[in-house]
């Protein structure tokens, strides 16, 4: 089935984006990416710590992957812009996930600062994907500011709580003319399928894979769920009734 997702001029076959944080070993990352079928992968930018040298994560990401660095750690628009410019200077492409968080307990994004960063970076030619609270007015402003997609959260980052913001995301899907990518909080494949069935353009998952008993199997399961949900959406589900509607022809001969 030919059903590409186009973002920033790139045609994506896979609607499943994965994050690379918190895996027990870097060696798992290429296997997880392969099992998931993901073409877009997030990474983060941090200070090098000479006392705890870490391997270069990019060595573990297949070369044909679209890298989407995030601005995690940014507490305001200026910090997010600084991280985005640094990431682009590394030559890893134009995509950037804006993540501006000043709330350390729930890790909820600051839509206002995220919008400011989106506006500046979109003008600088970045492919900007803002991570946001699913607020319709804010999403409209992100769209006007030049976002390539919007990424509302399903539940707090890393919580595995599922599609808690469902009703608000449904409104974004109906009202915003950009791909809606559900990012954060999804813990189970069924939740990814549910988001896709509602008409989400894609989902982004990290913790659910990294904290699963078998991350590779979970990556594959999510990949299948995303495909199943997408096909269910495209197939246009039938009308919901409150009473039973017979599936078999009624057998009148027994009563005559």
């Amino acid at each position: 089935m030919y059903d590409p997702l186009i973002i920033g001029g790139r045609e994506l076959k896979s609607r499943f984006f994965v994050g690379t944080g918190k895996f027990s070993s870097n060696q798992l990352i290429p296997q997880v990416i392969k099992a998931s079928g993901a073409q877009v992968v997030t990474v983060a930018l941090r200070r090098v710590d000479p006392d705890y040298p870490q391997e270069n994560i990019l060595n573990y990401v297949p070369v044909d992957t679209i890298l989407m660095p995030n601005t995690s750690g940014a507490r305001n628009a200026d910090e997010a812009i600084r991280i985005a410019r640094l990431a682009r200077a590394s030559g890893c492409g134009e995509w950037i996930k804006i993540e501006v968080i000043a709330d350390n307990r729930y890790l909820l994004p600051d839509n206002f600062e995220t919008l400011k960063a989106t506006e500046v970076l979109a003008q600088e030619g970045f492919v900007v994907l803002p991570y946001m609270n699913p607020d319709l007015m804010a999403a409209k402003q992100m769209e006007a500011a030049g976002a390539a997609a919007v990424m509302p959260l399903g539940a707090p980052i890393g919580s595995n709580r599922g599609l808690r913001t469902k009703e608000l995301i449904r409104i974004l899907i109906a009202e915003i003319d950009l791909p809606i990518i559900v990012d954060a909080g999804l813990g189970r494949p069924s939740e990814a399928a549910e988001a896709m069935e509602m008409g989400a353009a894609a989902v982004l998952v990290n913790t659910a894979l990294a904290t699963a008993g078998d991350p590779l199997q979970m990556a594959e399961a999510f990949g299948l769920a995303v495909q199943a949900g997408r096909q269910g959406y495209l197939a246009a589900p039938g009308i919901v009734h409150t009473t039973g509607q017979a599936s078999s022809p009624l057998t009148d001969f027994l009563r005559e």
Partner: protein
Amino acid sequence: MRIILNGKQTEVSSDVTISTLLKSNDFPEEAVLIEHNGAIVPQEEWANTELRTGDKLEILHFVGGG
């Protein structure tokens, strides 16, 4: 002389460039990004960017993230 390296006061020799600093600290050159006094420094300029007392240098790299 002292510079601020990744947020910490650090003693370095007085004629150090970004390149020599990376080599002397075993930082993998191919994997890092450099910000010098708030400005991004492309790799081709590392060898001729001399550091001065009080300079702020950030050495960054990509790690796993969601």
